[in-house]
């Protein structure tokens, strides 16, 4: 539980990054959301055995994290945190798909291994793009921009509240588990019955807490509308950013950049 708690408080580090100032931070949140969506679409649209052609896409997170002053170490930490999910999705591929697809020298590579690595690469690309969006925009602005794109207000409010409650719930949960630990003898894990009761209490406490936070929001004039910290203003830099990224993504997706680059390198060196 301590580890979960530490991981959750880590999530807060993104907020700190979002309050920085950089050319990426100054872009309109809508531009960044649009580009992130295009990026995700490009990544998932590659065929399942594709690896090499996706490589140039790493340029996007690399440039964004450099210009947006998001330390690679922070990104890596979050990626590691989420990696079990991706591993779980792909881990059976090598067992199920044993057909040899390519030969790398004397090494016969099966389709399963290729698709497994392909999933991992997609995971790194998509998750880092989403993290960079948050780290360079801020959670409230992302939610407000989603609203502007026509996402239901109820949904974006839930995103916002979810984000706030992660911290409060993890606090509450760690206090309950500690209280249990102190009265249950050393190292004994809670039984299923106790877990049920703990979870039930957590739900009820969360509900009460939700009512109180709602009251506090109403007391400060909340009427269901989100107001982002920076007013949305679309400038030419935003259009340029979207157009540039769209061009890059189209080039990588349809222009066989990796293949041509490889052929060119071979020609030059050979």
């Amino acid at each position, binding site marked *: 539980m301590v580890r979960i708690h530490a991981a959750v408080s880590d999530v*807060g580090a993104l907020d700190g990054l*979002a*309050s920085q100032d950089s050319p990426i931070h100054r872009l309109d949140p809508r531009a960044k959301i649009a580009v992130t969506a295009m990026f995700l679409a490009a990544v998932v649209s590659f065929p399942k055995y594709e690896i090499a052609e996706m490589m140039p896409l790493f340029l996007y997170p690399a440039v964004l994290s450099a210009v947006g002053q998001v330390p690679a170490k922070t990104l890596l930490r979050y990626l590691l945190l989420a990696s079990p999910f991706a591993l779980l999705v792909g881990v059976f591929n090598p067992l199920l798909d044993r057909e040899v697809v390519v030969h790398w020298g004397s090494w016969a590579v099966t389709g399963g291994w290729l698709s497994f690595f392909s999933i991992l690469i997609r995971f790194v690309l998509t998750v880092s793009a989403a993290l960079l969006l948050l780290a360079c925009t801020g959670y409230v602005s992302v939610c407000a921009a989603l609203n502007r794109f026509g996402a239901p207000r109820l949904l974006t409010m839930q995103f916002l509240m979810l984000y*706030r409650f992660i911290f409060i719930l993890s606090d509450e949960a760690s206090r309950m588990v500690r209280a249990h630990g102190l009265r249950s003898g050393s190292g004994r894990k809670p039984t299923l019955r106790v877990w049920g009761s703990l979870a039930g209490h957590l739900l009820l406490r969360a509900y009460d807490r939700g009512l109180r*936070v709602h009251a506090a929001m109403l*007391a400060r004039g909340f009427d269901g509308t989100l107001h982002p910290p920076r*007013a949305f203003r679309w400038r030419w830099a935003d259009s340029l950013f979207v157009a540039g990224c769209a061009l890059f993504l189209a080039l990588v997706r349809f222009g066989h950049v990796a293949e041509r680059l490889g052929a060119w390198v071979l020609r030059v060196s050979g």
Partner: protein
Amino acid sequence: MSHHIVEVRGLEYVYPDGTPALRGVSFRIEHGESVGIVGANGAGKSTLLLQLNGCLLAKKGTVRIGDFPVTRETLPRIRRSVGTVFQDPNDQLFMPTVEEDVAFGPRNMRLPPDDVEQRVRRSLEAVNAVHLRPRPPYRLSGGEKRSAAIATALSMSPDILVMDEPTSGLDPQARRKLMDLLGRFTHTKIIASHDLDMILRLCPRTIILHQGSVIVDGPTASVLADRELLARSGLDLPLSLQVCPVCGKTAGMPPRNDG
């Protein structure tokens, strides 16, 4: 300046589960007054405060803030003039940073960005918390959270400040600082608390609630010195009026800070 007046008449409230919380509460608080609301646990203090900003609406009786009764229609106006500081600052601070939290109210009032910025700065200055501005609320200490929570209420430029247990959970130094701060505010103040010494110092007038009814409403100096009355309400003399176990003397009335 009639908009600073709080008038409660025959207020009754029963919780949805049937628990009666308020039974015929009436009082009138004038402009600039500081009033302490005290009572044992479950006396109805918090419920009463939630009625003052319309988070709960009266089932019977009326609550008037200035010229307006608290009804569903007047809520936006009421909430602009009544600033509420809740008992647990964790309930009040829900945005990613202190700055955004303090700006939450002014932004809901649809003020232009410059005005929002000015209000954020002034409110944080008022509670000596400018340095907390970029910090996430969940990383603050108890005292810092309390200051930030008060700033979130101040940023709405309220006429009336309603506070629920503002000194609970604070260390002695933080408590003293908070009392000094509250003493400087010129707002109409309504403070519910078990901290009778704080009430003694900040509020010239005290209302005692007992089982949902007002059993006394009078000058703090006499109300909080009446041991028998306090005992009947589940309370005890403020520490400063109790006999010192070491020297056998009482500290006596503290210098009052009326703001």
